[in-house]
């Protein structure tokens, strides 16, 4: 058996090299004639107006916010899941309290319409 860390390291390097080679290969094999019209961003043929690198909806941030909180709390469940059979019923009840607090936050997010797409 091989050292798992070494495999992760070597494989990451390989995968990154695969991606970089594939992306840079057209530089050699493919033709390249840039033109004014060709380099314009694609907007279904309409004249480009405005800049997409600007203000977008706050709704995206609200989703990410709820995600981060729930993600942290769900990650705390992993170490508990490992030991929960040794921890006994008290451990289970403790985690039920934790889950209840988590669901409280979730219900609040629903209540203030942070999970709606509007």
């Amino acid at each position, binding site marked *: 058996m091989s050292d798992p860390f070494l495999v992760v390291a070597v494989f990451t390097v*390989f995968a990154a090299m695969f991606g970089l080679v594939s992306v840079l290969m057209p530089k050699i094999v493919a033709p390249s004639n840039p033109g004014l019209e060709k380099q314009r961003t694609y907007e279904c043929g309409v004249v480009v107006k405005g800049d997409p690198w600007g203000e977008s909806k706050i709704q995206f941030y609200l989703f*990410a916010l709820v995600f981060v909180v729930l*993600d942290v709390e769900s990650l705390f469940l992993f170490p508990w899941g490992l030991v929960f059979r040794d921890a006994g*019923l008290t451990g289970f009840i403790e985690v039920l309290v934790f889950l209840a607090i988590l*669901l409280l936050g*979730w219900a609040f*997010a629903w209540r203030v319409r942070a999970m709606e797409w509007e």
Partner: protein
Amino acid sequence: MGENFFISLKSQLADIALAWLPASWQPMISAILVSCAVMAFAPLTMMFLTWFERKAVGRFQDRYGPNRVGPFGIFQPLADGVKMAQKEDIIPEGADRLLHHLAPALVVVPAFLMFIFVPFGRDMVAADLDTGLLFFLAASGLSAPLIISGGWAPRNKFSVLGGLRAAAQMLAYAIPMALSVVAVVMATGSLSISAVVEAQARLGYWYVLTPWGAFAFVIFFLCTVAEAKRTPFDMPEAESELVAGFHTEYSGLKFAMFFMAEFTGSYAACMFAASLFLGGWIGPEFLPSWLILQVKAMALFFVMVWFRGTIPRFRTDQLLALAWKFLFPMSVLVLVATGAWYFLRMDSGIAAIIWPFLSLTLAWWGLSVVLAHEFIRANRPRRADNAG
């Protein structure tokens, strides 16, 4: 092509290499051989899957699908690859040129990384980490920022919106995915994927056959379909409103990289789901263990194709509502049910199967009613919304 074909092939190749190199290189050579094997596996699988999907969807739609290049069109992906490589690389003006190169190059890394944590067969896991389950989730979580960057780089409105939407969707489905994995962790008491498979071999039943496991499996599988942004969850790349979403401005091999990340990612997720819930490489003795896992994963992938051939696309608000308002509470309930299952010692007896199953089914239908109510409410005409 027996059980130990790949293992003995690897040790033979390692012996050949060690004849030339000092013995201290042994771990390095082993790592390189394993990496090469998985690196070869991933793109080949992607090629096969594109062919399989086009053929199958063709049949669903009463067409033949690709049938020109090679027998049954099996070499079509190769021809596509050659064509892709010759396409001009167009970078729109005003784009972030560095990111435009880097994002498609790196987006395959997390998708490929998912493969090395999955046990392909008995003693055939590339990187047998003690916390492999978490690393799988971490690798799938890393593709969200890469896809936002891919959408951001070309400075196109469609691709920026597509990238932001894709990430919102992947984040939303990551939570129920993680929670349904916690149920498996509770049952196994380990974070190693090989330990999960071995625990199912020891128990004699697959986790999907337990009441909590059945629901966790369905939640997990729906989440993997959504994480891979496949139909019916392909809103980020909906042609009818976002052109092609985050990869609108990518041509040739850059586009192929996004495509490859999507396909390899979904197949890796299929293999992962098969290992967690369907017993992984456990199966009839006369088949080699690595073949059994591939058969199970292909069956799951066929279900994904089936979805694509059958179910129309969700609207974005429905898609997010499904994750936040249905799958999330359902996965929390599954966790509670898993805990109760082990504490009340309900491992035996037919009643022990029926009661948890019935209550979870009841919860499932109850939440479905709530979700349907939300959908109907969302359909009522309101004041005009701004797009995005």
